[in-house]
């Protein structure tokens, strides 16, 4: 820990291949794709080449960017509500076996029921489309946070629990100073899963709702482009969804790393 490691643009030299190899692979695949499309004369309404997709992305940027913002807004809101409700419920579970016994099965039912199957009902029941989308995304994102945080809260070191008892800690002190910090790695692992699921939930709900208009998200742009056989635009919207998912995952991974880097095994750099 005395010598400062060498870094290139903030990354250790050994870390660069992890970044460059997949990037090169991606470039190679895109090149092969473009070549194949041109060489075999595949019409763009069957499979557009990467260049024409990029072109569609630039041409349709205003509408696509607006749609991206709509979808991201639903995703982030759903994730926030899922985190709040999930952590509160997990704390209640950890405080009382009775609450856990009573409510856990319903959380499981909510989780195992495919969102595509319940989304139409929710959209019928809830007048406000945005609210309906939010509920769908929330249902999908909610479970990993509840279940992971509950496991974390219950797997606190028994000796530390005893130590808190010995020093006469209140229930609240034990929760705040022991159980919640101990559950943090579990919660963060759940959060990373939920981030991706919230996006999937939002997209699925948008598909089912099929709502057009100014406040429509990326899924509707895909449907719309499909109806109009504008396949490059469809691919452009799809690429944006993937990109959004990757960015969400990276952001949550970074958050997790920043919180855990000082103390948790999962955040240890491999060279230590």
């Amino acid at each position: 820990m005395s010598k400062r490691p060498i870094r290139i643009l903030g990354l250790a030299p050994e870390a660069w291949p992890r970044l460059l190899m997949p990037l090169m692979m991606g470039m190679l695949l895109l090149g092969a794709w473009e070549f194949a499309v041109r060489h075999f004369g595949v019409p763009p309404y069957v499979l557009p080449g990467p260049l024409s997709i990029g072109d569609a992305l630039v041409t349709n940027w205003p509408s696509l960017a607006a749609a991206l913002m709509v979808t991201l807004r639903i995703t982030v809101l759903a994730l926030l509500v899922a985190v709040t409700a999930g952590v509160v419920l997990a704390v209640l579970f950890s405080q009382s076996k009775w609450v856990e016994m009573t409510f856990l099965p319903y959380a499981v039912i909510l989780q195992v029921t495919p969102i595509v199957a319940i989304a139409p009902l929710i959209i019928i029941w809830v007048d406000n489309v945005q609210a309906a989308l939010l509920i769908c995304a929330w249902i999908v994102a909610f479970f990993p946070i509840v279940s992971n945080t509950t496991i974390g809260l219950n797997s606190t070191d028994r000796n530390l629990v005893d130590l808190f008892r010995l020093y006469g800690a209140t229930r609240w002190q034990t929760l705040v100073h022991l159980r919640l910090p101990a559950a943090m790695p579990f919660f963060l692992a759940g959060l990373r899963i939920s981030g991706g699921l919230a996006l999937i939930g939002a997209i699925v709900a948008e598909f089912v709702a099929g709502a057009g208009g100014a406040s429509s998200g990326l899924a509707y742009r895909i449907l719309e482009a499909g109806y109009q056989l504008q396949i490059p635009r469809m691919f452009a919207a799809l690429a944006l969804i993937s990109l959004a998912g990757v960015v969400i995952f990276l952001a949550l991974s970074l958050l997790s790393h920043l919180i855990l880097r000082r103390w948790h095994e999962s955040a240890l750099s491999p060279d230590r």
Partner: protein
Amino acid sequence: MPHPPLTETQGPGPAGTMPPAGGAVVSLRDVTKRYPNGTLAVEGLDLDIAAGSFVSLLGPSGCGKSTVLRMMAGLAPLTAGHIAWPQAAPRLGFVFQEPTLMPWQTALDNVALPLKLSGMARAGRHRRAREMLALVGLAEAAGRYPRELSGGMKMRVSIARALATEPDLLLLDEPFAALDEITRFRLNNDLLRLWEAHRFSAVFVTHSVFESVYLSQRVVVMAAGPGRLFADLPIEAPAARDEAFRTSPHYAALCRTVSEALAGGMAA
């Protein structure tokens, strides 16, 4: 809550040699523990711990010595008998076999934990925790996290935490059993130095004859099945316990006596 520095004389009774009757920091009477599955872990145990004394509970595994310690700490209920504390609301310190540190807190905050739980203000508890870390030779490691510390250092932090509240009784449950022998010797010496300087009352659970003789003024040998008191041996030894004592014939003789008692307990 003010915490006077450890250098002051502490404990209700006079520190040092055999305290008078009534100078016990804790008295166990007819203590019995039966587990829910029917196993009789401890039966009819009577034990007084004199204030300011260092007592080892020695016995084979399964003799209930850790259970006795947990009952004294209030972490396990008694099936029968009672434990009397002459002093109202006695302060306890507990050192587990594992360091049992919170990995998300620095060494300093781990040591300050008992003070934080008792409502002491941040500045005060940090000052006290720094003193305690200095006492166990870890002043430099205050800002480090447990995973940045070696096994021996973690155990020192654990001991510093147990001493932070200036306990009336320090309970140690095989604290050095998981450490390598060299580290173990070092920590034995450190614990002795701390005890000689501050004369806290301590109950030390171990299955090592050598460790119990080296550290204690009194070794209580327990027998298993059910756990009970088998022998109660005073360890008369020079004031200065060090490497010279560890290699002396006197030490060897004491170890033999205790060993024979332990063997007797296991045969009984």
